[in-house]
């Protein structure tokens, strides 16, 4: 009865959203993401509203936890292992490095299980799935800035004493460095999330992947403490190394800038984001049938 004699094809009725079995990213996906920008904000807000409810210290944990971590690093790596920090006050070195690393690793790890942990929601309603990983990176970034407030307190103190001096030209590049690091975390995170949606093995791997990556990055020691050789080259192939060193260069005036490694890091980031987006778009179409 709806077998109309109409000569118009479905395409000719005007603007439409097409649903088909195609596995490619949908056209107009970016425009749609823009429409859902308040959802990203809501996911971020929900995280902070919900996470610290029914805790005694509440949001103080955001700074307390990295502060205690940095103290621990100070005693273990600075005190016991006697790793030199290029003359930078130890608390500043560890607080800053740890904040940078946590920004990256939480961007990565919070996204690694997106599909499995949001299966319930994804199975009931459509919205651009990528909003969740993006929100997770924004959450990590906000936590980074909160820690930076504490960092700034110490920093100004040591700055006044003349014990540190930043490199202000590099300082201006910090926003770009943070965006790159976040993008790298996002790209790798969504690749991992797509992998965990299919292979549960990956979610076990991820737990120690984070640990190993930490030691393969100059977080608890400066790159300058690694002598030339295979170790150093490997470390320079790690895309997180240069953002970390450039951060130190910016705020402490001490850090190793290696142009090729920097270019490599940007290339890896771009590849991870593009590949991640494609894989993620593919997995989000039907993962709910198998989860």
């Amino acid at each position: 009865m709806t077998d109309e004699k109409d000569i118009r094809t479905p395409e000719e009725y005007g603007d439409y959203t097409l649903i088909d079995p195609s596995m490619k990213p949908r056209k107009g996906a970016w425009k749609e993401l823009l429409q859902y920008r308040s959802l990203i904000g809501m996911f971020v807000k929900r995280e902070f509203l919900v996470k610290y409810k029914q805790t005694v210290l509440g949001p103080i944990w955001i700074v307390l936890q990295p502060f205690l971590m940095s103290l621990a690093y100070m005693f273990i790596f600075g005190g016991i292992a006697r790793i030199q920090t290029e003359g930078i006050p130890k608390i500043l070195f560890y607080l800053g490095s740890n904040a940078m690393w946590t920004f990256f690793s939480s961007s990565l790890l919070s996204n690694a299980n997106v599909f499995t942990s949001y299966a319930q929601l994804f199975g009931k309603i459509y919205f651009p799935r990528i909003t969740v990983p993006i929100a997770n990176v924004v959450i990590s970034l906000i936590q980074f800035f909160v820690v930076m407030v504490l960092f700034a307190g110490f920093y100004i103190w040591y700055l006044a004493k003349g014990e540190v001096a930043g490199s202000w030209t590099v300082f201006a590049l910090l926003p770009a460095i943070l965006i790159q690091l976040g993008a790298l975390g996002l790209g790798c995170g969504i690749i991992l999330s797509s992998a965990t949606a299919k292979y549960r093995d990956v979610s076990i791997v991820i737990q120690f992947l984070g640990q190993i990556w930490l030691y393969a990055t100059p977080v608890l020691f400066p790159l300058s403490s690694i002598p030339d050789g295979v170790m150093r080259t490997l470390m320079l192939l790690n895309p997180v190394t240069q953002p970390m060193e450039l951060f130190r260069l910016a705020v402490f005036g001490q850090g190793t800038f290696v142009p090729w490694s920097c270019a490599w890091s940007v290339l890896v980031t771009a590849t991870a984001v593009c590949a991640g987006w494609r894989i993620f778009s593919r997995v989000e179409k039907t993962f709910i049938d198998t989860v």
Partner: protein
Amino acid sequence: MMEKDRTPAIIVRGLKKEYQIGQIGNGTLQKDIQSWWARVRGREDPNRKIGDRERLSGDSLMALNGVDLTVWQGETLGIIGRNGAGKSTLLKILSRITAPTEGRAYLYGKVTSMLEVGTGFHGEMTGRENIYMNGAILGMTREQIRSRIDDIIEFSEIGDYIDTPVKRYSSGMYVKLAFAVASHLDSEIMIMDEVLAVGDMSFQKKCLSQMRYAASRENRTVLYVSHNMNTIRELCDRCIVMDAGKIIYDGDTERAIQVYMDAGFSDSTEIDFSGQPHPSYLASPRIRMLRASYPGKDDCAFRSTDRIPLRLEWVNLTDLKDVCLRVEILTLNEDPVGTYVLYDFYSGEKDSPVRLDLSLDPACLSEGSYLMKYAFFLRGAGGSMVNIECRTGLTFEIISARHSGKLVWESRYWGNTVLEDIRILSLTDGK
């Protein structure tokens, strides 16, 4: 109607959805890499089962098997069908939760789907916070929600509790809030999966009229799946019936309901349970039913003045004492009508086969088709009971009832039970 002049809201062409059943993929990375490596080298896949051809139908299920449908703007379309008919799969594809295996669908406008009540609600957040959250998930911007939040709160009837965490809400309040948000979206197409089943009667009515209003005045399109025929009747001006992944009827709502009801009716006078497992909800089966039949009948049509002969055959799985039996009568839509009970009629030993002949009096049933369920049970202290065997059994039809010839029985308003005729004690005519 001049369909040419109308604008479509949804066009579906040859939509199919295949689900893998049983194990999906090889399960582990190692085996998938093995299979992939074998394919790369052009060898036989080591993980393929022998004799396993591409798209072996035994391992997959066509949840949708070629659906064509055009829904026009401003229509309220009901979708009915048995569980597993493909209704939910169709809604999931149209609301873009999962992609189809074949075919296309065109959506002309923004779609809001409510496949569950309060999707994205978080118990720790207040009602107000959840309105923002839920609205954002449904695609509204912050400004849009802000401009409408007073209407939403008023519609939800939550009142002063709006700033209380929703974990303290009753389930009714929860539903009301969720529906209030969804119905205040400005989407052209609304997809609803039986969400009105919860919530009190007056709120259900309010929701239905809100949806009807949205369709008729604002020219929005509503797709509504339900097992509740009354809400389908009230809301929908067109209805499709789905069965085994296909649309078997498309048109008038009353006719559609009739088609759906008739599809559940079988003419057989005997049903064999021997191959069927016990229903999974049965905790302690102690009887295994083998057969139910209407002995001596070759159809299952009865007059309400007849007696329905019913024969049940079963095997005792344990020694039993004082077994009781319920014969439950339901409409084909599985709404209960009434129940016959037989108390403490039998005690027996393990493994003995039993045959029981009964006679049921259908005097109080109106014309129509019915379904029987058989439940054996044991009584405990204080009126409690334990079911020891439950089966969905034969259907039957009452072709002539007490009211026949005098009155067309409107069972959707009056129920399926025809009570005893009223006896007059006295009648005084003042004149």
